[in-house]
Each structure stands twice: as structure tokens, then as C-alpha cells.
């Protein structure tokens, strides 16, 4: 220790800092999971997070349009939609979602006495113990290893039991194809490292999508 002079001490501190920084960076980047290359077993330990911050939504309907285009969702069916809530002074609530807010909202307000109004984007909740997968008689509705609720359209018989069982009306029978359909969280996109189309299209970052652990940290810091 006696041999260490001021110059050597500063050198040692810089090397240590650089090492710690490199180590932290390396460690951090190791936690960044590349889902495109995950094995099936690792995918089972994996989970996605999706939060909707209703305080930021302006009801523009960009998410609905993006979903329609990305997933070729037919007219009058919706994988996602936006609802408008208006509450007047008598605490009467009016809710509307004209054509799922595909063309946003018009200004036909409930009345002039509105004390509170907000928009709520809706999407499949991808429930852990989902009623839709429970009731599917042929097992065509299922949970993917990374816990996204999906439909095997090559196996679905189109009975509509899942549509009845979903408490959020997120499913429908596509009458042109004859099978059930719903939000897939843009499964084809998220496994290429992209965000779902609705998240990507949102101009206000209302819809936040990510890997569950990291996402929770962000959510904690934000709210």
C-alpha cells in the first residue's frame, strides 16, 4: 500500500470504475432476452406485459386502424377498440364506441354538464386461467408457452362456445372463415422483437408493451 502514489490510485479507481461499468453493462445486457432465439423450455418461463394508461389516451383510434391493417380484421369485427366514458353532474355515465373508434369519436357529447371524461382502449386480457381456453371443446384455443392466448385456426370448429365464455367480448366468429378470432398480441411481430401494431401506432404511448419483469420496474417508477 505504501507504494501507491496519487497517480497510481487514480489509475486504479478508473480501471475499477470501467470494470464495474463494463460488468454492469454486460450483466444488464444478459437479462435482455432475445425471444426470437428462445428454446421452448425457456419460453415457458417467459411472460409478456401490457399496460394501458387510460390517463394518456386521446381516443384518436390509431391503434384500432393499425390492428385492422396489420391483422386484416374484417369490418364490424374488432380485436381492439376504444371506449369513451362521460360522466355528468348527476353521476350518470354514458359510454360509446362508434364502430370501435375506428374513425375516432365525434363531438356529440352527452350534455354540457360533463364532470369527467376519459377513453379506455380495450384488448384481450390474455387471462392466465382463461374461460375461453377452458370451454373450447377441441382444444383449438390454447395458451402459448409465453402465456399468450391463441387460436389454432386449422383446428377450430367454429362452435362459438369461447365467444360466449369470454366476459370481455374480445372474441368473435369470423363468418367468412368460419372460425373464432381474437387479439394475438401480434404474436408474429413480438417474436421478431417488434411491438404489437397497436402499441407501435399509439402517438401518446398509452399502450406499453414489454417483458414482464422489466415492464413492472417501469410501471412502478411511473405510477
Amino acid at each position, binding site marked *: 500500500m505504501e507504494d501507491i502514489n496519487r497517480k497510481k490510485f487514480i489509475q486504479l479507481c478508473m480501471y475499477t470504475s470501467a470494470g464495474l461499468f463494463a460488468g454492469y453493462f454486460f450483466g444488464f445486457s444478459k437479462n435482455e432476452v432475445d425471444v426470437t432465439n428462445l428454446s421452448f423450455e425457456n419460453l415457458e418461463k417467459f411472460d409478456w406485459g401490457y399496460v394501458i394508461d387510460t390517463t394518456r389516451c386521446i381516443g384518436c383510434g390509431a391503434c384500432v386502424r393499425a390492428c385492422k391493417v396489420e391483422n386484416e380484421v374484417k369490418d364490424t369485427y374488432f380485436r381492439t377498440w376504444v371506449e369513451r366514458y362521460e360522466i355528468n353532474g348527476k353521476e350518470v355515465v354514458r359510454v360509446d364506441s362508434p364502430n370501435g373508434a375506428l374513425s375516432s369519436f365525434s363531438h356529440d357529447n352527452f350534455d354540457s354538464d360533463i364532470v369527467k371524461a376519459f377513453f379506455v382502449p380495450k384488448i384481450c386480457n390474455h387471462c392466465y386461467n382463461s374461460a375461453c381456453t377452458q370451454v373450447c371443446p377441441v382444444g383449438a384455443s390454447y395458451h402459448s408457452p409465453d402465456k399468450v392466448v391463441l387460436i389454432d385456426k386449422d*383446428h377450430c370448429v367454429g362452435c362459438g362456445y369461447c365467444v360466449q365464455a369470454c366476459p370481455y367480448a374480445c372474441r368473435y366468429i369470423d363468418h367468412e372463415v368460419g372460425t373464432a378470432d381474437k387479439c394475438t398480441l401480434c404474436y408474429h411481430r413480438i417474436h421478431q422483437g417488434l411491438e404489437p401494431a397497436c402499441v407501435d401506432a399509439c402517438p401518446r404511448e398509452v399502450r406499453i408493451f414489454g417483458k414482464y419483469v422489466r415492464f413492472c420496474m417501469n410501471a412502478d417508477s411511473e405510477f
Partner: protein
Amino acid sequence: MLLCWLRYGGEIMGPTSFLFPNEVHITWTVMIVLYPYITGMVAGAFIVSSFYHVFGMKQLKPIARFALVSSLAFLLFATVPLLNHLGKADRALNIILTPNFTSAMSGFGYIYMAYMVIVILEVWFSYRSDFIKKYHNAKGTVKFIYKILILWNDNDNDNTKKYDHKMIIFLGGLGIPVACVLHGYVGFLFGSIKANLWWSTPLMFIIFIFSAIVSGLAVLLWLYIFVHWLRKTKVNQESVDLMSKWLWGFMIIAVTLELMEILSISYERTEKWEILSKLIFGELRWSYLYLQIGLFSIGSFLILSLTSLFKMKTQYKNFLIWLSSGMLLLQVLLMRWNVVIGGQLVSKSLRGFTGYFPGLFEKEGILVGLIILIVPFILLRYFDKLFPFFDSQKISETK
């Protein structure tokens, strides 16, 4: 008074009306109304036939075979509305090949097949002696058909008759719980959907079983009296009287159970009553309140009370029983409509209703529905030639 209390007892919703965008479409159409209606008649008719075959109620002997064959005729068409409804009918067998046993619906194929086997075997054992007689009297191709039907075995003696009788009792006994499961399970399919407030009740499958017995008894009585009127033969009054009394009793139980369920929901005053009261007194006012409960339940109850409690001319009595049977058939059809369609009219947001009425010429429309409903009756007409229901000799003796 009860209706007024039910109407004004519940809190009335605000002027809002909202549907989730996907709820504009009704998923289960008139085909799913017909499916429980037809299986109800299947189960009900089989139970009536078992009253004679298993429990030995001799008053029902003249109608027992007719009940059994009717059950078979309806059973053969029970899956037709389902197949017409499926978005991918070509994959229908997936239910049997890759069943997902967490789903109640996955049991359908197995229950249906088990019941079909029981009914076909019981019909075969019931008619084996008749087939053998016809085989001996027939010639050419018809003889060959009967040879196939008797499975190349024309043994018909006391021992074989005893064995046939034993098998009929066994199959009838086995068939009663399976018939209850077949139809109770349809009720369970609806009752177990907690996302639907109008359906979600553990009482649903019991209501379905009783309404099945009502529709089974009603269709048999209606056809029995109608066919005898058409053929200008005399009905077995003892059978008609007994069945009409049972019809009276079972319809009282079925309607009471249904009304008690609604009374219970209204008395609990939970949030679901807010929307269901609007459904009952608004959207389903005509089909449920005025027609199902008012005209066809109370009306047929009063008519059957008259025929069961008071003495009157047989001719008038039988007409009134025939009329009330027809009314109860419509009552059960409306009950299925109000359950299946009514439940889907309510938005899962609990803020509004959607509308539905089937088109005339649609794939799942009125015309196709009528054809599916009528074809089993036409089949029954031709079944009469293969499996004669009524012993005409005995009828002429009673003249």
C-alpha cells in the same frame, strides 16, 4: 301484482345503452334454439317409454313403442342444427378425436353416441319378434332387408322373448340417466357460462330436464291424438288421461322452477337484476312474458287443470288435451328461444342490448329451421311402416 313488483322492485338503469363492438353479432342463432328443443323431445319421449318398459306402467303400453321410435326419429336429427351452425362443419369430428376435457361441450360426442346406441338397441330388441314375423311373410328384396335387420337369426320362442324383455328393461333403465345427462348437460352448457347473466345458474340443467320431459310428453300426446284422429281410430283413453295428468304435473314443476329462478334474482337485488329486469320487461316482453309465461304456460295450465280435475265429454276433453299439448310444445320452443337468444341480447358491459331476428332464407334462417324441425315428423311417418307403433287390432277391439 307479481309482475308489477318484479318490474318496479328493481332499480331502473340510466338512459345509457352500450354494446361492446363485437356484440353486434349474435353468435348462437336459431339453430342453437332448435338443438335443445329437439334433444328435449328425444329425452322426454324416451323417459315416457321407460315408464312402461322399466317401471311396468301398463296404462302406457299403447304409447310405449311409439315413444321409443319417436325418440329415435328425433335423435337422428338432433345434430343437424349443430352441424348447420358450425363454422367448420367438416371438422365436427374433432370433438370426438381431440376432446378438451376441461370443456363441458367435449362430452357431447360421447354422450350422444352412447345414447344413440342405447336407443337403437332398445328399438331393435322391442321389434325383434315383429321383424322375424315380417321376415317369414316377406319375399325378395324386402325379405333380405328383414334378414339383415334380424341379423340372420330367426329364433323366436319363449326363451328369446324373455331375453329380449330383460334387455329392454336393462336398456330402458340405463337409458333414463343417460337421457337426463343428454339433456341436463345441454342445460349445463348454458348454466356454466358465468359471463352470461341470463344463463349462469346451477338451476339451469334441472330446468332443462323438466322442460325436456314436458316437451316429450307434449309431443307424444299431440301426435298420438292427432294420428288417431287422422286415422279415425279410437285412442286409449286411459293412456291419454294418465299422460295428460303427468304433463300437467311436470309443466307445473318446470314453470315454477323457472319463475322461482327469476324471483330469486329479483329478490337478491344484485347488479344483474338491473339489466335482466330490462331484458324481461323490455326485449323479451312479448316472447317471454306475454307468450311463454302468459299464453302458453298459464293458458295450458288452466286447460289441463280443467281436463284433470273436472269431468267432461271425452271428445272435448281429448281436444283440450291436444290443444294444451300443442301450446306446451310452443311454450318449450319459446323457452329455448328466450334462453338462447335472450341471453345473448344482453351486452356483457351490462349497459345495453343487441337485437336479433333470423332471416327467412339465411343459412341459419327460419326456412332451414322449419325444415329441420319438420323432417323428424316426416321420418316418423315412414318409421311407422318399419316399426309399427300402434297395435291396430287392439284399437279395433276397443271400438
